[in-house]
């Protein structure tokens, strides 16, 4: 239908998550119409991200490669290398984007551990596909005293949290394990909360006096 390079661009864009064939076509035409330097900037950004960004050797968050600091064992992310972050508290999340979400809150001062997914046999993800071994090793090696489980509140996320709780029991250290609460969104009105969220918020209610 289109000249080969155009079709290839559309096909590549169409493989991105959330981009259907129509959107892929629209983006491809946009790129083709825009000045060459705009397209080059996009290509460079993709390239730079791919070559300069790697996984943190400690928490598996995104980290920037730094040839001068890399002694062959990999690099650490900004959070792990920040001396002001409390190494005794770990927040366990499924994906790097969840780190970003929690960082925006500004509340959490500890470090993270990114599992790189959740237990989902349908997708071929078992315990060994996740960074669980590394998490267990960190708890002992880094003197972690509290783990906050912050996996998604779906079946896969809660199964993963359940699995971790059992694994922690085998550790020879005393560990406080907590799970983020589920409840009402701040700044909204009670009547707009869906029944399930409301039910869970009531179940997790807290004594105030």
């Amino acid at each position, binding site marked *: 239908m289109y000249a080969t390079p155009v079709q290839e661009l559309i096909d590549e864009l169409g493989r991105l998550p959330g981009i259907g064939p129509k959107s892929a076509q629209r983006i491809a035409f946009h790129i083709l119409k825009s000045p060459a330097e705009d397209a080059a900037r996009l290509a460079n950004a993709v390239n730079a991200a791919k070559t300069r960004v790697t996984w943190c050797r400690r928490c598996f968050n995104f980290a920037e490669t730094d040839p001068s600091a890399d002694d062959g064992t990999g690099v650490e992310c900004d959070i792990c290398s920040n001396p002001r972050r409390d190494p005794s508290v770990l927040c366990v999340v499924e994906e790097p984007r969840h780190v970003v979400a929690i960082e925006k809150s500004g509340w959490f001062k500890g470090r993270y551990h990114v599992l790189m997914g959740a*237990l*989902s*046999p*349908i997708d*071929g993800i*078992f*315990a*060994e596909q996740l960074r669980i071994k590394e998490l267990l090793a960190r708890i002992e090696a880094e003197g972690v005293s509290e783990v906050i489980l912050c996996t998604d509140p779906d*079946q*896969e996320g*809660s*199964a*993963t949290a*359940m*699995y971790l709780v*059992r*694994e922690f029991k085998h550790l020879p250290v005393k560990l406080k394990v907590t799970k983020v609460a589920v409840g009402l969104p701040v700044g909204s009105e009670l009547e707009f909360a869906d*029944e*399930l969220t409301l*039910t869970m918020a009531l179940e997790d209610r807290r004594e105030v006096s």
Partner: protein
Amino acid sequence: MYIEHLAVWDYRNFGRAELWPAQEGVTLLAGPNGSGKTNLLEAVGYAASLRSFRASPTASLVRAGCQQGLVSAAVRRDGRALQLEAEVLVSGRGRLRLNRQAVRRPEDFVGALLVTVFSPDDIELVKGGPQARRDYLDAMIVALSPKLALVAANLERALRQRNALLRSAGGVLRPGMEGVLDVWDDKVAEAGEALVTAREQLVMALVPEVEAAYRELGGREKVELHYERSWDGALLDALRTSRALDLRRGVTGAGPQRDELHFCLDGLVARMQASQGQQRSLALALRLGGHALVTRRQGTVPVLLLDDVFSELDGRRSAALAACLPPGQVLLTAAGAVPADLSVAAAAEVSAGSVFSSPPGGAHGPDGSEGVRDGS
């Protein structure tokens, strides 16, 4: 509750059709086979549940050659006016509007209109496999308590995950897999126990309602409903016990997905030993019993949709049904004769993609014929 006005655009065989059912009592949709009577009932069912009760994919509801259709229903529920609009699309999910406001989540739309459907296929409830009976219970559980829809969805998800794990193991559990299977056992057990409790409570509440409905339909046999679990004791223990067998088979052998609902008439198994007529009566009694239960629990009468019910029943049973129809709005299709003593509050004539129905007050249909007939 009742439907004041139903309109469909590019739906099945209709380009545009409108129906003004009677507020109370039977609205008879008459017309030859293939004219689209059932399609109208299906459209009402779609506005209620966003699914076809004929189990057709949504794409097939769109009129041939069109990209989208629309179902719109003006509903009165306890004095409150509700305007429901649901698009049906050839591909993708159609938009939903409730009182002219866009509704994003289907679960916020489903349940605004409650319906009870009886169709000729319902004889499968009695004659067919256990899946139909489990679906019958689960649909009613959700109608009575919408938040239990999540329990059923959680169970289905956990079972899919557990079965995927069993299959990937290929008969033998690798070291390290055991802990993962443990947590999916927990997830299946958690949702499974909640669902089975809801089903057993529902069956207990249904027994007197179905018995009463079966008697009113002229049945003399004693009706029994008996829910049978596929396991003993705690589900979690049963899953642990059946683990070795499950690993070999690649499916989960214990849980609500394997349970059975038995029907007996005078102690005989209805599926095998009842006559066709008895099976039809029982299927109808199951629907009418559920209808009575939802009516009592929800404090509002669902709209009753009876598709081609008289062609399925013999004369005696038809007359009994005509005499015992519950109060509330009933939409009923018939290709042939209806019992003489059926009290018809309104009638609409359906013929090859058009409907002759008149709004209350307007006495004449588009063809000049009398659109609303007085049944008395």
